[in-house]
């Protein structure tokens, strides 16, 4: 059922990168076209132009971010909370125009029909559009239509455009490998969105080959502003990763310090010139630290203005770099940060140190922050291992007979259902009466379940678990089983103590989250009423029939029919129908009788 992740990843080679870079520059200089395409026998390449003025990036406030459209980007959110990701408003606007006005979409579909691999690319702000287009394609074609075509995205000097939820979603969906961002060691553009707008950017109409972002005499101020703000963001995030106990940072809420929402995503390739080496960094937190630390002035004697100018001109050097093979994916020049982490604080020999000079020239605190990133990753894994112990028995886990396991607790319900059958009641009604020893015992199980799931949900909300936790198939399956078996009991308990309000207004997060995980995993669209909680709606309608407060009899009847139809469709939906689901025949029949 699931698309094999590796089969849809586009593997890059030097030829492809070269073509992509050249095409990106062509698109960048193009006067007319928003997208330049090139079709090779097996690959379709789309290069995006940055057709905007840089000032436009800040249209919606100091950082210009805005919520994504859920229809276009259903995956760009935190699943459980339903919290939408934010991206740069102008880039989103450009992309949406592209999708409706140009022939981009038809070209893409043509390529898909021809079963070509697809590569999206762009230089500078064009890279930002390309990134967004890639995320849209991954959602639309791979996730939704389940097409198995390799898709990739290569950018050159691309600014940051998405917030930490985009980063989270990309990690969660395992999309990181689709993105390769080439960044010159000191290029200012990939960092500039870490700062609010302060400078007046040059209009890019009089385009020559060498247009700068800002006037030369403004370069110093612009650079300093970016560096200061990059430092704020980097130290803020690094401090959080270090599990601090000091509370002053919490006091310094967003009210006091407004800093950039943008964070990197995908793999970054930092390119240095002296010597020509490449550092591949896959962890977004590490990328953020390096975006800042690589921009630091090398020493106290460094002239700031000169350095600032260099940083600006580096943005214009990708083509040149390509021509002297600086962007080649050469195994001798390339090194992965994840392999170097353990050498960061040691005196290991020259070989390791020479493997990437730029990295080892960083100061001790930079390396320290990179280690904090790694530690945080390990910590999340460890938290997940802790939770696993409460989910089901694994061979490796120590079995402690005090510990109740979610899976065991789930297995008890079918037995309870059976016993209730002897009482000629369905388990919902039986539990609502709650007058036998076995009802009491099940109630204890319900409480145990609730507490374990509450812990899981709390950790998800605090983001203390790996990004991919919420799409982990075992969790989704177990959560769905739990929800179908136990939510009717919670509803029964709720209406037994009938507190007046509707259950739907007080639905526990453990059911909201588990339902959304299931809906996301099966690409279904998010609903409020589901197969596990419709009984609550029926209860509310029942109450309306007895003592009408909000609805007329006719309205209730209509609502009832609506529910009845839903139940019917669910019963034929293979994603939903399951022996665990409680279909509420008795209570539905009772309501129908009342309405007759």
């Amino acid at each position, binding site marked *: 059922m699931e698309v094999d992740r590796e089969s849809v990843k586009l593997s890059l080679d030097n030829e492809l990168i070269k073509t992509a870079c050249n095409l990106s520059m062509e698109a960048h200089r193009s006067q007319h076209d928003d997208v330049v395409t090139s079709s090779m026998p097996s690959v379709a390449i789309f290069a995006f132009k940055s057709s905007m003025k840089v000032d436009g990036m800040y249209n919606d406030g100091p950082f210009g971010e805005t919520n994504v459209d859920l229809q276009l980007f259903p995956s760009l959110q935190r699943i459980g909370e339903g919290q939408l990701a934010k991206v740069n408003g102008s880039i989103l606007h450009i992309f949406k125009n592209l999708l409706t006005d140009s022939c981009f979409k038809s070209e893409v579909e043509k390529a898909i029909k021809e079963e070509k691999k697809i590569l999206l690319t762009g230089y500078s702000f064009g890279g930002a559009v390309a990134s967004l287009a890639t995320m849209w394609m991954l959602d639309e074609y791979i996730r939704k239509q389940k097409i198995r075509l390799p898709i990739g995205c290569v950018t050159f000097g691309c600014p940051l455009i998405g917030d930490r939820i985009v980063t989270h979603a990309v990690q969660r969906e395992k999309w990181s490998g689709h993105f390769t961002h080439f960044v010159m060691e000191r290029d200012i553009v990939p960092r500039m969105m870490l700062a609010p707008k302060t400078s007046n950017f040059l209009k890019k109409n009089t385009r020559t080959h060498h247009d700068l972002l800002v006037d030369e005499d403004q370069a110093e101020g612009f650079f300093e502003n970016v560096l200061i703000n990059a430092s704020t963001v980097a130290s803020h995030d690094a401090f959080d990763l270090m*599990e601090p106990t000091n509370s*002053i940072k919490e006091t310094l809420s967003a*009210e006091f310090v407004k800093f950039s929402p943008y964070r990197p995503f995908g793999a970054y390739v930092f390119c240095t010139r002296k010597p020509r080496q490449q550092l591949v960094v896959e962890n977004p937190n590490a990328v953020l630290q390096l975006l800042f630390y690589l921009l630091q002035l090398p020493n106290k004697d460094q002239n700031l203005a000169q350095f600032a100018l260099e940083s600006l001109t580096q943005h214009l050097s990708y083509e040149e770099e390509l021509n002297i093979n600086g962007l080649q994916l050469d195994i001798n020049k390339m090194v992965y940060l994840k392999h170097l982490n353990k050498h960061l604080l040691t005196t290991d020999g020259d070989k390791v140190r020479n493997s990437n000079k730029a990295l080892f020239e960083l100061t001790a605190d930079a390396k320290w922050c990179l280690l904090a990133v790694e530690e945080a990753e390990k910590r999340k894994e460890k938290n997940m291992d802790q939770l696993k112990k409460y989910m089901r028995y694994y061979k490796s886990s120590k079995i402690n007979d005090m510990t109740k396991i979610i899976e065991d607790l789930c297995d008890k319900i079918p037995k309870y259902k059976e016993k209730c059958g002897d009482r000629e009641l369905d388990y919902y009604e039986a539990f609502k009466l709650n007058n036998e020893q076995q009802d009491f015992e099940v109630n204890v199980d319900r409480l145990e379940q609730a507490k374990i799931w509450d812990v899981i949900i709390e950790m998800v909300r605090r983001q203390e678990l790996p990004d991919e936790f919420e799409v982990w198939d075992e969790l989704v399956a177990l959560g769905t089983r739990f929800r179908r078996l136990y939510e009717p009991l919670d509803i029964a308990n709720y209406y037994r103590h009938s507190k007046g309000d509707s259950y739907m207004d007080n639905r526990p997060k453990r059911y909201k989250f588990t339902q959304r995980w299931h809906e996301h995993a099966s690409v279904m669209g998010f609903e409020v009423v589901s197969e596990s909680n419709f009984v609550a709606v029926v209860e509310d309608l029942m109450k309306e029939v007895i003592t009408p407060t909000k609805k007329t009899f006719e309205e209730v009847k209509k609502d009832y029919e609506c529910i009845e139809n839903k139940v019917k469709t669910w019963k034929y939906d293979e994603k939903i129908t399951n022996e665990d689901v409680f279909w509420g025949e008795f209570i539905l029949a009772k309501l129908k009788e009342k309405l007759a």
Partner: protein
Amino acid sequence: MEAEASSFETSEMLARFLGSTPLLPESWKLCARSNVMAPQGFLVDEVGGVTYVAFSGVQSLDGLNPCCGNLVPLSIATTGVSPVYGGGDGGLFPALQKQSDENEVMVDAGLLQLFLTIYHSPIFQNQMFEIKRKQKPVVFTGHSIGGAIASLSSIWLLSYYQSVSSPPSVICFTFGSPLIGNESLSRAIHRQRWGGNFCNLVSKFDIMPRLLFAPLAPINTHLRTLLKSWQLTMNSPFFIRDLGVQLTEHEKSELFHFVLRYVDATVRSPGVITNSFVPFGNFMFCSSDGGVCIDDTVAIVRMLHLTFASGSPSLCINDHLEYEAYVDKISLQFLNRTQDEFYESNTYETGVTLASQLISTDQEHMVKPIKDCLRVVRRIGPTPNRNSAELAIGLSRIAPLRAQIEWYKAVCDESDDQLGYYDSFKLRGASKRDFKVFMNRMKLGEFWKNVIDMLENNQLPHDFHKRAKWVYASQSYKLLIEPLDIAEYYRSGEHRRNGHYLKHGRPRRYEILDKWWRERDIYGENDNNNNSKNRSKFASVTQDSCFWAKVEEARSWVESVKCESDPRVLAALWVNVENFEQYASRMVERKEVSIDVLAKNSSYMLLMEDLRVLKLQLPYFSPQIYGVLDRKVLP
């Protein structure tokens, strides 16, 4: 789970973060301006949506001198001074006056007086009115003595905001401020979780933040000269040094060594001397290389000592005027890479080394003591968040124990002997079921005792006791189990040995849980099942967990009435009994008791019957006769 120590020393990273924000330079800018332009007053400015209030470090010394270094209770100094502004009984700092179990919260008399003078000025009142109205975040700041006024203002505003829902943030940055209060103040700030609202910048050698460790009377004249000269410089538009009368080198040396001796003594004396000054909040120690920021009181005192001792008589005086350079340094330190390179065995030691290098600034002999000092505050054991998650799982483990007791209660309440929950347990036999309830009660007690211990040892997140889940879980624990504890207390006859439960037998955990419940955030989640709507049926558990203790006490009064002959004592007893009757009938009327109270053979019903008979027998003992006596009101 295995114990683990924190793997990062974050004091340097925190200072780096704070330094990169505009808050520090903006605060300092206004401080410096207020020193020049607003002597004895303050300036207000708004930058980027944040309001800055800077108190001038140039203050009148007349009021200061005689009492500088004298602690006075915060409460005495404020209540009654001006009830018009103070707003009711609590004085200006209601939040800091509740604790009865420790020494009084005290602050320096002179500094408090300076604050009050500014506080009562109409211009300050107007500004604060505006700030409160706008609901914007506020930074209080000040250089030198101005910093102390900023701290007091922050404490005042934080106290005020306690009664406001979702108040705006308040933060206080001081530059070379003297200490302002005693240990109780420091603890009270800690307990209110306000430590994170204070950040005191202290330069390595500055004498001012260390001054109040020493008694000031012997060095009064030196001090006066020094303060005057400082203030002349601070007040001069071009920051001209050495204005006015200067201390001689000899006098400087006397001053330095005098203060150093007392700072030394403070560090050496284990435990804190009462009636001495104690720091609170965060301290950011600045050197010419950058800063580190720490919040542990012990570490702060040690660091204040270490860095001061490495200075000299002239440094300790000049450094008080160097904050501009330090702020510049801290906010621009990240522009350049530093040259140092070193290797440490782990990430924790890396942080320690980074921080110690920043502070020692090439004074090699200081590196080791500073490292030791930082290691003092290393957190051992899992993080508060991890602990809280573990506890939540623990809570799920005890849920069945509680459910069993609920089940037991339901059985007792419906049983034929009509004893009810409380009396069934009190008069229980040796059945297996009774024993199980007994054991469950013990286990639940252990669990909650442990929770409270962990919270008090700072092993749990700072807002733990305000999280809805824990407030409600603890309340339902208390309501269900405390009656059993009371029953056990009277069953075993402990009241005859130690006195009644309420005064002499109540476990401390219940008092703390009472406090959680009282202080719960009424805006928290799912409060809907605890609103004050009239009940239509009896509560499932009695809403006052001490109800039965009060019944037992009343019973002993009734017993005493029967055999007492002294009319005065008798009268007092009757007043007590009558008060109890009123309290109990009010509870029953509002249906705030559970049905077990009204079971036919419950202690309460038996007592009422007893009382009725007694009153019939002794009609002339009507309490009205003794109405002239003082009535004690039951809680």
